[in-house]
C-alpha cells in the first residue's frame, strides 16, 4: 500500500520539483516584467495632472482620454503610420535580401563551412549597436564616406545629399542591423528541407526554378514568417536609429514615448501610447499569421 500522504507525494512529485525550479526566474520575471507592464497598462487609464505638492504625476482618475488623444490626434496617427510604414518596408527589404543569402549558405556551401559562414554573418550583430548606427550616419551623411569616396574616385563632383534623406537613412540602417535576425530563421528552415524532395522533382523533369517555387519556397515559409516577425516587432519600437539618423525630424513611436514619459512627464499619455503601440504590433502580427495560415492551407499540396 502506498503509505505516504497526499502532501508528501506531492512534495516528491514532478510538479513540485518543476515549480520550485522555475520559481527564481519566474518570480523575477513576474516582479520585473509582468508587474511593470501591468502598471503601464493601468497608468494608461490614469489622468496626467499635478499633485498637491505641485509635482507632475499621473493621478489615479480613470479615464479613456489618453487613448482618445493617441488615436485621434493627427500628430500621433502620423507617428504610428510612419513607424509602421518604415517597419514594414525595413522588414520587406531585409527579408527579401536575406533569403538569397540564407539559400546560398544552405545549398551552395559545403557542410563543413556552413558554421563558418553563419559565424561571419552574425559577427556584425555582436558589436555595439550605437557604434554601428553612427557609422552608417558617417557613411551616408552629407560629405560622408560614401559621398566623399565617390568624389575621390571621380564618379561624382560634389557632396551628395539625397542619402541624408531621413527615411532612407533610417531604413538602410535598420535593414543592416536586423539582417542576421532575418537570415538565421530562414536558414534553419531551409536546412530542414529533405534534399531528396528536390532531387525527386528534378528527376521528374522540373527545372530548378519550378522546383524552387513549388517545393523549396513553400517548405521554407515557416522560416520566412519567423524572420518577418523577428524583424518587424523590434523595429517598430526602435529608438536609437530614428534619433540619430532622422536628424530630429523623423521621430518614430519610441521617440515620442520617450518624449512624453520623460521630457514632458506625461506618464499616463506615454503609457497609453506604449500600450497602443504594443497593441498595433500584436494586431499586425496576428493578422499576418492568420493570412499566412489561409495562404498555406489554400496552397497545400
Amino acid at each position, binding site marked *: 500500500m*502506498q503509505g*505516504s500522504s497526499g502532501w508528501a*507525494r506531492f512534495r516528491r512529485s514532478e510538479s513540485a520539483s518543476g515549480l520550485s525550479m522555475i520559481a527564481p526566474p519566474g518570480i523575477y520575471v513576474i516582479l520585473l516584467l509582468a508587474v511593470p507592464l501591468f502598471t503601464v497598462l493601468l497608468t494608461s487609464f490614469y489622468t496626467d495632472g499635478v499633485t498637491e505638492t505641485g509635482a507632475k504625476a499621473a493621478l489615479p482618475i480613470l479615464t479613456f482620454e489618453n487613448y482618445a488623444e493617441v488615436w485621434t490626434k493627427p500628430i500621433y496617427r502620423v507617428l504610428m503610420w510612419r513607424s509602421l510604414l518604415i517597419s514594414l518596408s525595413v522588414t520587406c527589404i531585409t527579408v527579401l535580401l536575406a533569403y538569397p543569402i540564407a539559400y546560398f549558405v544552405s545549398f551552395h556551401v559545403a557542410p563543413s563551412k556552413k558554421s563558418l559562414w553563419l559565424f561571419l554573418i552574425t559577427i556584425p550583430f555582436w558589436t555595439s549597436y550605437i557604434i554601428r548606427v553612427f557609422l552608417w550616419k558617417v557613411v551616408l551623411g552629407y560629405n560622408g564616406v560614401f559621398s566623399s569616396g565617390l568624389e575621390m574616385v571621380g564618379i561624382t563632383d560634389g557632396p551628395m545629399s539625397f542619402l541624408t534623406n531621413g527615411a532612407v537613412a533610417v531604413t538602410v540602417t535598420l535593414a543592416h542591423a536586423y539582417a542576421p535576425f532575418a537570415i538565421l530563421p530562414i536558414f534553419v528552415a531551409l536546412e530542414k528541407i529533405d534534399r531528396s524532395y528536390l532531387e525527386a522533382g528534378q528527376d521528374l523533369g522540373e527545372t530548378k526554378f519550378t522546383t524552387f517555387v513549388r517545393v523549396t519556397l513553400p517548405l521554407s515559409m515557416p522560416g520566412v514568417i519567423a524572420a518577418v516577425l523577428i524583424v518587424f516587432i523590434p523595429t517598430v519600437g526602435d529608438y536609437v536609429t530614428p534619433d540619430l539618423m532622422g536628424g530630429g525630424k523623423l521621430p518614430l513611436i519610441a521617440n515620442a514615448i520617450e518624449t512624453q514619459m520623460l521630457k514632458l512627464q506625461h506618464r499616463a499619455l506615454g503609457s497609453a501610447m506604449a500600450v497602443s503601440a504594443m497593441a498595433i504590433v500584436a494586431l499586425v502580427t496576428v493578422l499576418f499569421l492568420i493570412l499566412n495560415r489561409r495562404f498555406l492551407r489554400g496552397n497545400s499540396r
Partner: protein
Amino acid sequence: MTDKPVMIAFQDVHKYYGDYHALRGITATIRAGEFFSLLGPSGCGKTTLLRTIAGFEDISSGVVMIDGKDMAGVPANVRPTNMVFQSYAIFPHLTVEQNVGFGLRRDPMSKEDKAKAVAEALEMVGLKGFGARAAHALSGGQRQRVALARALILKPQVLLLDEPLSALDKKMREQMQMELIRLQRQVGITFILVTHDQEEALVMSDRIAVMFEGEIAQLADPETLYRRPNSRKVANFIGTMNFLPARILSEEAGRVEVDAQGFGRVTLDAAQCMGQGAGAEANIGFRPETLTILFEGQSAQDRESMATVTEVVYYGDMTYYDLRLDGTEQDTRISMRNVFGRPVLDIGTRTRVAWSPGALVLFR
C-alpha cells in the same frame, strides 16, 4: 527452481499515467538466481514494470517486494537493485575506470581496494586494461560491458537490464547473449531482462513473462511457452504457429476429443487445451517443425495425413513449404532442414506428412 527463495514479488500492481492504465493488476514472483525475462511488444508495460522494481516509477496501487521487504516509499538510490539502461548511460566526461567505480564513491573502502574491485569488474566483462580509456570513445558493445561492470561491481541482489542488446548488430547481439548467460551463472544473482525479441528471451531465460497491454499473458519457462502457449496471441508472438479449424466432439475428465481439419479425429490431453470458450468451434495450433514430410518407404511413427505442396521458400539452411492438407481450405507452413542442400519437393507434389497428437494445441 521451486525450492529457491522468492526475490521479487508483485501483488496486484497497478500503474496509471494520468488516465492511461499502464499496468493492470500484475501478480507474479521472480526467484533468486533466476534469469527472468519480461517479453512483449512496444508499449506493453514491460519497461514500466522493470522501472517499478528499480524505483524509478511509483506504483498507483499494489505491492512490490524485493527480498521480502515492501518497497513502498523506498527511493531508487537505496534499493538493492542496479540497472543497465537501454542507452547504457555511460558518463561521457569520465574514464572507464571512473564510470565503473562511480557507485563505490560513497563506500568506505580504501582506494586500493576500490581500484582492485574496478580491475576485477573490468576483467569479468572482458574489458581488461580499458580503465584509462575515455568513455565517449567506446563502441556500442564496449559501452554495454562498462555498464554491466558498473552495475555488477556493487553486488546488487537484482540486476535489471532494459533492452540491453537492441542497439547492437546481429553478430554482436548473439555474442552478448552468450556472455550474459555466462555472466549470470558466474555471479549467481537474479537477472531481469526486458526485451521485445522473443528469440533472445527464449535463448537466455529460465522463465519468461509474456506481457500484452499491461497484463501478464503467460509466465512460464521457454519450453512451456513455446509448446503450450495459453492463447493464440502468445502463440503468435513466440515463433510462428499454424491454425486450422476444429470441432470439439466430446469432453471427459482430462481428455478432449476433437475433429480437426486436415488431421481427422484426435484425442488431446486437458493440458493441451487452452482458453475458456463455450461451444464446439475451436482452433488447432501447431508449430512448423512438428509436421514431417514422409518419403517413399518411410512410415509415420504416429499419425499420418496427405497434403499438396503449394509454395516453396528456400532459406539456406531450411526450406519452408506451404502445404494444403487434404480437407483444409488454407495453407499451413512447415519447415524442413535442407539435409540434401536444396529443397526436395516441387510445387504441386502430393506428399504424406507425419505428425503426433502431442504436438497440437487446442485454442477455444
